[in-house]
């Protein structure tokens, strides 16, 4: 029954009633536009969150030390907690099952000079695992390796902005860089994997942690312990695991259980969980609002289609008198409804996409709020379904019109 003639009929009817078609399409177009914009904004939030933490592995735990805030077992408050190599080894050993990568960090600010160029940088002295925790990408050469640690080599790996600052066009690999009057050999250059992230990350100099401990203090102090947990851990397990490490450290240093400042951990699992929850709530909200507006659109179309059927009662009667079976009357209404719904839905989709693209929303925590292909495909089915639903009542009403009643209608 679906042939070209039918579509010609529908186009003719739509074309001859432009205003009516436009009005009935408007509600759906508007609903879909709203939905697209909301969906895009929600997507944008999600992208922002993902970007915000993209610099670190998403299963990282950073453990910091500070001063005690609670007196315990004869110890005063304000006691400084200092991590060291034995603690690092102990953690590494005790939790080896749940640890993926682990490194200590020693911080030092240095003045670096190469030839006539000179600038201040922060040095992070680390273990080889650090590369995978910070997601640093080696551009040239290599990262710190276990031999560097073992032999306390004076090898360093520098960020690409350090190269830009000091070396310009010169290839820095194999060159010696002067850090606070001590010469270090450059063995690698890294870039930060995420674009637009804090450029300071690309102005860092990495050196073996053992070398830094020897040169800058001749001790075994560690400023910070960074690790990534076993990715197979669930978020709950990972959070528990982080707490376990903190408790362990507190025990070693005789810190009160409820002391929040002496030993602290930043656990990505916790952040992930919060983001997941937030995104979930946001997605549900958008879905409710989107579905609500879509339902309003469907009701609008249905309403207008009922009106159209009423308005076309006479025409339908004439068609029936001329031999139109009920099914063909139904089909006209259904196709018209689906057609109007789908077309105006796409207009809404395009408008929504245009609105999202035309504003720079980065300042409002919204990054790349694009419309995905899956959304477009999903929307197509939803719209066709919506059109069918919208046509249900009017089509049946049209089909049940008695030709005699219809012909009498003026």
């Amino acid at each position: 029954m679906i042939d070209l003639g039918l579509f010609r009929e529908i186009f003719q009817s739509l074309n001859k009633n432009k205003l009516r078609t436009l009005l009935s399409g408007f509600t759906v177009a508007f609903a879909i536009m709203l939905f697209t914009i909301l969906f895009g904004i929600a997507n944008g939030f999600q992208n922002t969150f993902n970007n915000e933490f993209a610099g670190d592995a998403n299963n990282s735990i950073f453990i910091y030390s500070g001063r005690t805030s609670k007196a315990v077992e004869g110890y005063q408050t304000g006691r400084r907690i200092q991590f060291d190599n034995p603690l690092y080894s102990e953690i590494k050993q005790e939790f080896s099952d749940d640890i993926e990568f682990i490194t200590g960090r020693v911080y030092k600010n240095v003045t670096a000079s190469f030839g006539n160029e000179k600038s201040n940088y922060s040095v992070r002295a680390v273990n080889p695992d650090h590369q995978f925790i910070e997601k640093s990408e080696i551009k040239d050469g290599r990262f710190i390796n276990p031999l560097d640690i073992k032999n306390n080599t004076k090898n360093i790996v520098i960020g690409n902005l350090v190269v830009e600052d000091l070396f310009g066009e010169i290839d820095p690999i194999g060159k010696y860089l002067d850090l606070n009057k001590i010469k270090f050999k450059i063995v690698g250059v890294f870039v930060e994997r995420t674009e637009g992230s804090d450029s300071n990350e690309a102005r860092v100099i990495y050196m073996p942690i053992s070398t830094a401990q020897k040169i800058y203090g001749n001790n075994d102090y560690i400023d910070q312990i960074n690790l990534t947990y076993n990715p197979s851990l669930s978020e709950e397990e990972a959070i528990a695991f982080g707490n376990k490490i903190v408790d362990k450290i507190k025990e070693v240093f005789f810190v009160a259980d409820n002391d929040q400042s002496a030993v602290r951990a930043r656990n990505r699992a916790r952040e992930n969980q919060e983001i997941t929850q937030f995104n979930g709530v946001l997605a549900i909200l958008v879905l409710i609002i989107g579905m609500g507006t879509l339902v309003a659109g469907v009701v609008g179309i249905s309403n207008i289609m009922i009106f159209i059927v009423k308005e076309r009662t006479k025409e339908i009667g004439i068609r029936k008198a001329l031999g139109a079976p009920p099914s063909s009357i139904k089909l006209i209404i259904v196709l018209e409804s689906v057609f109007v719904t789908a077309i105006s839905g796409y207009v809404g989709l395009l408008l929504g996409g245009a609105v999202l693209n035309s504003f720079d929303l980065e300042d409002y925590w919204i990054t790349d709020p694009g419309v995905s292909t899956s959304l477009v495909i999903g929307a197509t089915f939803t719209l066709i379904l919506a059109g069918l639903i919208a046509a249900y009542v009017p089509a049946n009403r049209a089909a049940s019109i008695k030709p005699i009643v219809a012909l009498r209608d003026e």
Partner: protein
Amino acid sequence: MLKINKLHKSYKMGDSSLHVLKGINLHVEKGEMVAIMGSSGSGKSTLLNIIGILDELDSGEYTLDGIEIKDLTEKKAAQYRNKFLGFVFQSFNLINFKNALENVALPLYYQGLKRKERQEKAMFHLEKVGLADWSTHLPNELSGGQKQRVAIARALAAEPKLLLADEPTGALDSATSQDIMQFLQQLNDEGKTILIVTHEEDISLMCKRIVRLKDGVIMEDKKIKQNRLI
């Protein structure tokens, strides 16, 4: 061609019921041109609607071209209307967003004909009513007489066995009315069976037989000498 026996029809008006047709017996042979006369409320339009399968009878028998019209589904009724019957209405009932040719082609569309065939046939019938040059005009660009000619062309397009005209000249001035009636006579001469509902005496005199209805019964059924316009 058409046999009606003991036809009864009543309409429900709230609690009471209005008995419109009270036992109609009517036989029409092929090639007849019958005028159904009566004042308003006599039941003539109801009778035409039942004959046109636009309405259903309550009791009695109705046979059209040897087929009993009874308890039809909507689909079947539509099919019979399309195949057997051509309608001409007082208010023309053209579809106003379709041009003359498309209006004439519409019943052919419901016969399932191909577009090209439809247009050829429709054009043929438009030529027959003398409106070939007006084929692309919309109804509101046509005069009353022209509209009724398009409507007649449309009624003829499906080549029906029976042409039903409900006050075909009711909305036309007398000169145009003559014109239309002359054309209907011509069609009848060609062998088409025509039933005309009218309340105008002079129109009825242009037919070959007059059936007078009053209060739902046939008062008079007589053959007359046709007032020829050709």
